[in-house]
């Protein structure tokens, strides 16, 4: 009977009753905190992760800007230059890569043993998945929002209001993709699967997300794939908010927006889709973690 075992237990242990629910909430916090601590500490990674977006913007963006400047979509005639179009997409790219890599550090933790320390603690396992997803979310958000300082260099005007609007949008995208990353990590037992995820999931997700080209007027098969890509619903709102700061008519901005069946998808719906995606992925990850191994 559990009563007599409680009586037998010495005083020191009785003073710290095991309440796994509060313990799990504390665990979510400390797992999140550890991720941020490691993120801050790794300055090289921070610097390196800014190099890639810069390379895309400066080389790729400038190159295509001048090539496409004479075309019908991008250019001086009331529209936006390619580099302005691409800029929010690159913010999305930074969020996409950081979120998935950040969350998938669970696989590293498993490989190097630290995950064991967490999994044997008297906490519920959902806390590990949630803590990691939130850790990835925060890192990705910071990584994306840091790029806002580049706005003047690409000729984009950002008001304080625009920035305030961008923060939750970046957070939602980061959350959806981090949860996706945790879900992937919960299924992986070794680092071997990492390259596969990178080549067969992250790169296609990036290319189909509308970060690099508008998602209108594409071939049929590609239209379908781009609408299946969850990242599309996170990057599109970022772009619409960033470009709306320029004061151009909505019709100009809508020519780049995500459409389904010819209709522009409202931002609130996109946010809803992204959140739902994140929650489903996280739910799945929690279920995977709670299976005892």
């Amino acid at each position, binding site marked *: 009977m559990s009563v007599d075992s409680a009586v037998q237990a010495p005083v020191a242990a009785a003073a710290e009753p*095991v309440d796994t629910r509060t313990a799990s909430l504390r665990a979510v916090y*400390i797992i999140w905190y550890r991720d941020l601590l490691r993120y801050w500490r790794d300055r090289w990674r921070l610097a390196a992760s800014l190099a890639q977006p810069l390379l895309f913007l400066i080389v790729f963006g400038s190159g295509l800007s001048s090539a496409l400047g004479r075309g019908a979509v991008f250019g001086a005639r009331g529209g936006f230059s390619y580099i302005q179009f691409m800029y929010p997409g690159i913010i999305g790219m930074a969020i996409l890569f950081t979120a998935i890599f950040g969350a998938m550090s669970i696989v590293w933790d498993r490989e190097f043993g630290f995950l064991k*320390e967490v999994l044997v603690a008297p906490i519920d396992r959902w806390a590990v998945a949630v803590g990691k997803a939130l850790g990835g979310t925060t890192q990705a958000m910071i990584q994306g929002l840091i790029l806002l300082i580049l706005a003047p260099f690409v000729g984009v005007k950002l008001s304080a209001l625009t920035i305030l609007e961008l923060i939750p949008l970046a957070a939602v995208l980061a959350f959806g993709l981090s949860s996706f990353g945790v879900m992937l990590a919960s299924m992986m037992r070794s680092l071997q699967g990492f390259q596969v995820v990178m080549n067969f999931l992250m790169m296609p997700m990036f290319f189909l997300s509308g970060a690099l080209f508008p998602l209108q007027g594409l071939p049929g098969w590609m239209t379908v794939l781009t609408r299946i890509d969850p990242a599309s619903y996170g990057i599109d709102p970022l772009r619409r908010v960033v470009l709306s700061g320029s004061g151009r008519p909505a019709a100009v901005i809508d020519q780049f927006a995500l459409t389904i069946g010819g209709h522009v998808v409202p931002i609130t719906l996109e946010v809803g889709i992204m959140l739902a995606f994140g929650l489903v992925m996280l739910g799945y990850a929690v279920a995977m973690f709670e299976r*005892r191994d």
Partner: protein
Amino acid sequence: MTEAVIEARGLVKRYGDLQAVRGIDLEVNAGEIFGFLGPNGAGKSTTISMLCTLLQPTAGTARVAGIDVVRDPARVRQRIGLVFQDPSLDDQLTGRENLDFHAFIYNVPAGQRARRIDKMLALMELTERAGSLVRTYSGGMKRRLEIARGMLHQPQVLFLDEPTLGLDPQTRRSIWTHLNELRSRTDITIFMTTHYMDEAEYCDRIAIIDRGQIVALGSPDQLKALVGGDVVSMTTPEADAAAEEIQRLLKITPIRDDGTLRMEVRDGRKFVPRLVRELTVPVDTISLRRPSLDDVFLKLTGHAIRDEEASGTERMRAMASRWRRR
């Protein structure tokens, strides 16, 4: 009467057809250092994992700190400290940060956290390096940090799975000095597995496990008393012939271990001259000593504890740490 802190009854673990642990019964008393000794693959880690609630037993029951490990694993985990066979530190955090993480996740009251961490750091002689990244620690320091971490939430039992595996002899001795120090300063009960015979000598009591079963249990002296008298070992190029002669002329059955023949005799000093006189086969060496736990193991199981698999694990670990350094 002392109360049993760990109590196992008929513990069994089966993986398909393989029976890793075949019915283990044991009781560990408060304040004891209890050693689980056996070769790799004997079922030591499986047993310790079941006691720590990391594995579900196929059959049998176990209570740790008075709590059933199957029915209430969370409460068991709050009351035990764990040091795993493989390292489980975050080497990109400092020693102190690793301890902080643990204290937080194990719900150590905020007011006591810093004090307990300082105390354990001092006890494990890590105070000076507490602010360095664990990446820069030596193997022995990492182990000590893990022991300190396992003690932070004031467990009643500290479980150590092969705590000295892969460490050099000097570091292994230092880990033992620290464990003894820990025991004398707290009222912790220590349960550990090892396949190093010399380490088992430090334990108050030992269970010798082979092929999933306990073959002997007692203090090192009690176990050594199972081997009567002295141990004489002889190496010879003609082991078969020598064994036959010893059997025939001296009425003793030697135990074969490759080219070595071991004999247990009442008075070794008188036996050796007789042996030399009677034998006709060539003899390379003869040695005489008091029985060790190796002899006990050999006598009880008919085979010696071998290190081959352990060295494999150690190689893997060396590779992993090289990889980690990048």
